[in-house]
């Protein structure tokens, strides 16, 4: 029998709010345990939550970037469960009136454009971090109460490739939008994956299996693949897939039962009496919309239509926001988009990957690259000399123009100097001259090489070619 998998994702993203969701504690990754805590995020008696407006703004902007409608009235609810990572033993979340509703994400999967529907985005608070050690567990409440939004997709994906493309696009948009850095290593982007399988043609979805809390895209891909195969095997064997929550064992590449339906929590949601509902006016939504940054797809289109870059270049430049921002900055200092693109895709990315550093830390700044390109465009240096200058600046720093002067890299376009080298090359290589005159156009390249050699690479190649042709064709 043919089977079809259905996948939905619940993606938790930590927003760049600076301070926590309901108190003014800062959030700093890697701070000494329990140093960014207060009576509110530790759940002390009498402490009350106060809303972080930045979180509301970022959640709504995330919604706008994903085409969601912003709920004019949304409210807070308590989700009750006992666990040491939740200081109050309830999480403040949004149950039935989230900030953002609807939305979609257009993604390219294996060369075809697909649209994945988003059901809702709600705002909540993060849990503390538990570390299990010999003889007990340690709880670090620095992360407790940090701003966390949950983006819930519709069950609209059908393969691991779909899910991966969706998450990559989501990550890119959140980064571009300044919503989150989505650093998975730091737990800033984690997903619960719902997977079900049904025979093709069956209307109802199969039993839903939820795989909890994964931060690695590679693991998510593996887990989905494993889970689809497992569920199909169960169905093929005449069994029924149990609705349950499973974990993923990365070492074995397998999922395993964590909690069955019977053990499912009753979270006893009810409206949070300590917080007032959030009302958002249409004017506020429009103000936020006006502040939205350009998304990668929009940038990509603009690079092609306005800057005349090839699709390929536009794709490479926009795939990483940092690279794209760097490109944008360089374009403020030069008009030669293709030259900037070539240098980024060639020298820059090659050298960066060799060093393992970020583009923002490169000694070649956008201004310096523009200066190098200006020297090439003014024919002061050749393109190959330009690449040398780039590498020198990249490794040692310095001002391109000073380097060109100090190293004597300026190319020679002066006719008298060129004429001496050209005459010499013609005189010393009668065979090539003969071949050229016999119609073998390529022979001129050898002569050209001789001139470049004699000039130690400084001769202006265009001027040399012109002069050689002039002399030979005469």
């Amino acid at each position, binding site marked *: 029998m043919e089977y079809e998998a259905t996948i939905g994702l619940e993606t938790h993203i930590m927003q760049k709010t600076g301070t926590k969701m309901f108190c003014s504690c800062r959030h700093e990754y890697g701070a000494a345990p329990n140093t960014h805590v207060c*009576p509110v995020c*530790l*759940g*002390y*008696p*009498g*402490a*009350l*939550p*106060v*809303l972080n407006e930045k979180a509301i703004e970022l959640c709504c902007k995330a919604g706008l970037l994903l085409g969601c409608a912003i709920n004019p009235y949304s409210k807070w609810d*308590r989700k*009750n469960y*006992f*666990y*040491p990572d939740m*200081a*109050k*033993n*309830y999480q403040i979340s949004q149950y039935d009136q989230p900030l953002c509703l609807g939305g979609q994400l257009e993604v390219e999967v294996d060369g075809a454009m697909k649209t994945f529907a988003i059901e809702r985005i709600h705002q909540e608070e993060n849990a503390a971090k538990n570390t299990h050690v010999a003889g007990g*567990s340690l*709880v670090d409440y620095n992360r407790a109460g940090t701003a966390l939004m949950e983006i819930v997709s519709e069950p609209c994906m059908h393969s691991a490739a779909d899910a991966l493309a969706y998450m990559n696009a989501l990550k890119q948009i959140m980064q571009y939008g300044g919503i989150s850095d989505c650093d998975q290593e730091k737990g800033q982007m984690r997903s619960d994956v719902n997977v079900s399988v049904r025979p093709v043609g069956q209307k109802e979805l199969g039993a839903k299996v939820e795989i909890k809390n994964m931060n690695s895209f590679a693991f998510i891909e593996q887990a989905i693949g494993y889970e689809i195969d497992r569920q199909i095997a169960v169905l093929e064997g005449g069994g029924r897939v149990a609705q349950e929550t499973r974990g993923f064992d990365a070492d074995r590449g397998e999922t395993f039962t964590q909690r069955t339906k019977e053990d499912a929590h*009753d979270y*006893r*949601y*009810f409206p949070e*009496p*300590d*917080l*007032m509902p959030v009302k958002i006016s249409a004017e506020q939504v429009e103000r936020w919309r006006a502040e939205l940054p350009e998304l990668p797809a929009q940038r990509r289109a603009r690079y092609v239509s306005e800057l005349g870059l090839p699709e390929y270049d536009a794709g490479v430049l926009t795939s990483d926001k940092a690279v794209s921002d760097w490109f944008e900055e360089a374009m403020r200092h030069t008009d030669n988009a293709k030259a900037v693109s070539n240098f980024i895709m060639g020298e820059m990315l090659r050298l960066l990957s060799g060093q393992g550093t970020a583009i923002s830390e490169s000694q070649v700044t956008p201004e310096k690259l523009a200066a190098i390109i200006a020297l090439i465009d003014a024919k002061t240096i050749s393109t190959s000399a330009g690449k040398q200058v780039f590498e020198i600046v990249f490794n040692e720093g310095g001002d391109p123009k000073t380097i060109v002067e100090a190293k004597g890299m300026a190319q020679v376009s002066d006719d008298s100097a060129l004429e001496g080298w050209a005459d010499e090359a013609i005189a010393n290589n009668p065979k090539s001259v003969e071949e050229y005159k016999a119609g073998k156009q390529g022979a001129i390249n050898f002569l050209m090489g001789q001139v470049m050699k004699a000039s130690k690479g400084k001769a202006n190649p265009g001027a040399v070619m012109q002069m050689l042709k002039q002399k030979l064709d005469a």
Partner: protein
Amino acid sequence: MADLNTLTLSELSDKLAAGECRSVDIVNDVLACIEERDGRIGAYLTLDRASALEQAQAADAARAAGACHPMLGIPVAIKDLINVKGQPCTCSSKILEGYVAPYDATVVSRLRAAGAVLLGRVNMDEFAMGSSTENAALGKTSNPWNLDHVPGGSSGGSAASVAADEAVCSLGSDTGGSIRQPAAFCGCVGVKPTYGRVSRYGLTAFASSLDQIGPISKTVRDSAILLDTICGHDPMDSSSIDLPATAFAAQLGSDPSLSGMKLGLPKEYFVEGMDPEVEKAVRDAVEHCRGLGAEIVDVSLPNAKYAIAVYYIIATAEASANLARFDGIRYGLRIDGKDPIELYGRTRAAGFGPEVKRRIILGTYVLSSGYYDAYYLKAQKVRTLIRDDFAEAFRQCDAILAPVTPTAAYRKGEKTSDPLKMYLDDILTTPINLAGNCALSVPCGFASNGMPVGLQIIGDAFNEEAILRVGHAYEQTTGWHRQRPEW
């Protein structure tokens, strides 16, 4: 100078301002009174004498340096669920025994800023759950008018300390009557402010949508002074309302006329089973107000009869979540287990008393999947109807007169075996919390057993001015509030 502790807050405030006494003198007299009487009353759970005297000295020094505030140097007893930095805050529960608050509640910060002396921690029903202070796990409190009788609750210690002159005034909290009822039982004045009037930040939550901190004092004016000091918008409490500064005390004049005021009398409030002596005292008070020039009009609160049912669903639902934080992980009692679940179970089994457990279980049940709509959601809808009743009534009157409780203070142990019977005693106070408006209790006589009776004056939301005015006029022209228990 002796017995400064028997004077009212405003009398002491005047004396302090006139240089006729020092804060240290007042605190010494109060401490001496506590020393002498509290063995019998049991109002205080903890008392830091040295700290109280230090604060009094600081207040005297501040006054010498030019500071002035009606609360400067006035000792205040604090119900043991309001956080005061560096002091215990047990909520009279074993689960918080030994816990020391790491921060000040907003009302406490405001008292400190005014220069008040934070005297000590007074007893209460555990986590404010009760009406007699018999549910207290860490102390027993008696009614100063008759030691065999309950002081009321949950702010029993707050009321008893004031009635026994062991405090000049106190702070209590009122979720379903917990200020007004003990104030009535002990012959004091108590005000339940409008929800949102006083910051709840630092008030250990029982039922977040109902809790309000308020004053208990010897006179209406004293409560007005205390309320002026503690109320006002607090950015740390999202439910606190941003309103212009109040001058409740300053608005209380010397003219006791109530002419031009319409006072409502709700027929549903004279319930079956009401003690005829209580009813008579209240009806006499109504006539007294008519004599002061008020027009008495009949109003109706048809949904008030559902208040107990609604209250015990909403309050317990919120409490079941609010009390979840007492889990033995971060503070308070911990009894270890093999895993967190066992640790929670053991800690909470040993730490909470029976009434608290009863309410947590009830609240958990009404929120459970499949029951939510029938209980919690339905209760919220009826709550709206109760609120609408009051809104309608206040279109016809400026304030409502009613009893506080169906009976005066009863004997200890009389109702402990029947929780439901004790719940029903809240019938006249819970509607006000559910509606969110304000009310006060002022002494209006005595039952034949010698126990005080309280008149409840109910006001519209944020119209404390009206109820204070009526209460003050009543008080000025009657002598009930000046009667003290004999020692």
